[in-house]
């Protein structure tokens, strides 16, 4: 009923500050098994009932954590991701916004030959509503368990799409916010592969935005491998070139990375591309019915 996170998730929170603690409580209330937090110097204490540890090594040894969520501020976030990877945590979800690109270049190279998967950074996280497992900052109540996988570079736009689905009674297996930075751990293609191989996911929603060519790569993957219906939307059809639209990665550079190019590639791959962000839900309803 889900990919990457679910009933077996034992979540560790890296960076149990005000923000981290607030969302750790939110994850627990939703149903996630939050086993503790790491804040160097606070080891041995508890906050909101969560045991705290000084290092990820100790936390994993004592709690059996297999997923971590990173709230550590930008200057230390890359270090936190690498620390989690060194303890072989299977999935690291980095919420932190504003990590220097060259830090992520190093993290990317470091993770390449390791078993750890990274989601983010600069993302809302991942949620599997059917298994009541939320790892991130998204509002849990807008989600509903069901057959649709959602992958998106955005936060609130993903909530918008999910709310449309839920309002139509269409639930989700897992929703993955992959993040708005230029260098991210899990790409659209990676997420599509997971949903394609997941027996319970029947349709996929893919939300992209201007900048880079990840959506084009994903479209090529869909064309070659995906038989499940895919609905797509690209934000930034009206964005001016050369301007960074909020997200570090959302920029049309040298005429490349436009919404038009991405939509064309996606349509050519058989993806049902909607022009209006308000039509994501209804398009999914149609493609599911047609199946």
């Amino acid at each position, binding site marked *: 009923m889900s990919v990457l996170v679910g009933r077996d998730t034992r979540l560790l929170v890296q960076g149990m500050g005000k923000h981290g603690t607030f969302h750790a409580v939110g994850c627990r209330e939703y149903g996630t098994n939050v086993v503790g937090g790491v804040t160097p110097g606070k080891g041995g204490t508890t906050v909101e009932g969560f045991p705290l540890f000084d290092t990820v090594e100790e936390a994993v040894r004592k709690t059996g954590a297999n997923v971590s969520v990173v709230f550590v501020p930008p*200057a230390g976030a890359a270090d936190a991701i690498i620390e989690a990877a060194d303890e072989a945590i299977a999935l690291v979800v980095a919420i932190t916004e504003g990590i220097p690109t*060259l830090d992520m270049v190093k993290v990317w190279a470091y993770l390449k030959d390791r078993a750890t998967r990274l989601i983010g950074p600069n993302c809302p996280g991942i949620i599997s509503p059917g298994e009541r497992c939320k790892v991130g900052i998204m509002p849990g109540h807008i989600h509903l368990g069901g057959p649709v996988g959602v992958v998106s570079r*955005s936060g609130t736009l993903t909530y918008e799409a999910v709310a449309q689905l839920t309002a139509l009674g269409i639930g989700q297996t897992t929703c993955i916010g992959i993040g708005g930075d230029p260098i991210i751990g899990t790409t659209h293609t990676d997420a599509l592969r997971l949903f394609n191989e997941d027996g319970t996911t029947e349709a996929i929603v893919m939300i992209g935005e201007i900048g880079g060519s990840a959506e084009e790569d994903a479209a090529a993957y869909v064309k070659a491998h995906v038989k499940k219906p895919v609905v797509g939307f690209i934000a930034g059809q009206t964005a001016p070139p050369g301007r960074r639209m909020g997200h570090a990665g*959302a920029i049309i550079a040298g005429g490349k990375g436009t919404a038009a190019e991405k939509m064309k590639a996606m349509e050519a791959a058989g993806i049902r591309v909607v022009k209006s962000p308000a039509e994501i839900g209804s398009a999914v309803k149609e493609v599911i019915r047609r199946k």
Partner: protein
Amino acid sequence: MKIHEYQGKAVLARYGVTVPKGRVAYTVDEAVEAAKALGFPVVVKAQIHAGGRGKGGGVKLARNLDECEEIAKGMLGMTLRTHQTGPEGRIVRRLLIEQGMDLSGSKEMYLAVLVDRANGKPVFMASAQGGMEIEEVAAKDPGAILKESVDPVVGFRPYQARKLAFGLGLAPDVVPKAAALMLALYKAFEASDASLVEVNPFLITKAGDVLALDAKVSLDDNALFRHPDLVELRDFDEEEPLEVDASKYSLNYIKLEGGQVGCMVNGAGLAMATMDIIKLAGGSPANFLDVGGGASADQIKNAFRILLADRDVRAVLINIFGGILRCDVLAEGVIAAVRDLKVSVPVVVRMKGNNEEKGRAMLKESGLNFDTADGMTEAAEKVVRAAGGAR
């Protein structure tokens, strides 16, 4: 963050990249002084954050003091228009006075370092076709661009620099000099957390010396916290004043030319999508504005102030997907802002989150010029109508 050519050259020189001797001048007197110190001829270069300056009349050769004074007088304060500035152009406030180089028998090539998003690594690019824009080269003759991907574990290797230098067709005695400059360029890129360093043209003189004749350096905004010295290089004159104002309140605002519908949204993706749906409804968005996740009363007030400073705005759409946010609190902030700022244009509010109904009722009962909408399509149609209809 973009910086000026003279600042970029100073950064590159710090890591061993050879650049022509030069000085910045804010006044005609300073320009003349600089030229005297450098000796003639000098090149007078307008410093704006845009390329294509030469064609627009922003780069001129001065052979003597009189010429230098005349050129500096004409250039300082002029509005320079290039294909990158748009029709409104940029006012020139600083000049770079640089020693004139003997270009006869020289070659102009191209070097750049940036991060390749597709493979998550820095890439060093070189082309023998300098002096023209790399996008043009990429379109006409992609094979003319040489690329070396950099493994961050070991960095840009000397052999890679040599490979590029040989690939450019440089003479064997020039290759070591060119490779040394490339290694220095990479060091500058890495040490200053740049998002782009571009040397175009990369000059190889008749005598076989190599230097960066022009330099474009852009810095990674996310890394500025560890470069206080580079933060100082920000030139607010080069930025849209409203955008600078917005950034003080953690608002991400980008003005769009000729739009009538102001929009205020939380989240970058949703903000772009809101612009898109306004366009689909027949209107044109006046701006991109991301108020962030919290959307506090103070932020909403400042957001309104900035949106309405744009005289073209005929109506405002607020699209907030709160989730956790309480809509009654949001409504309170919106009402207070509209009252305090005496906002007279119609405002359409679409909000999702806790206490939605209560928030909507508060807006209706306020007696102010509000309309509310449930979905994005409805909101876009209403605001476009309020702004004077589709055009």
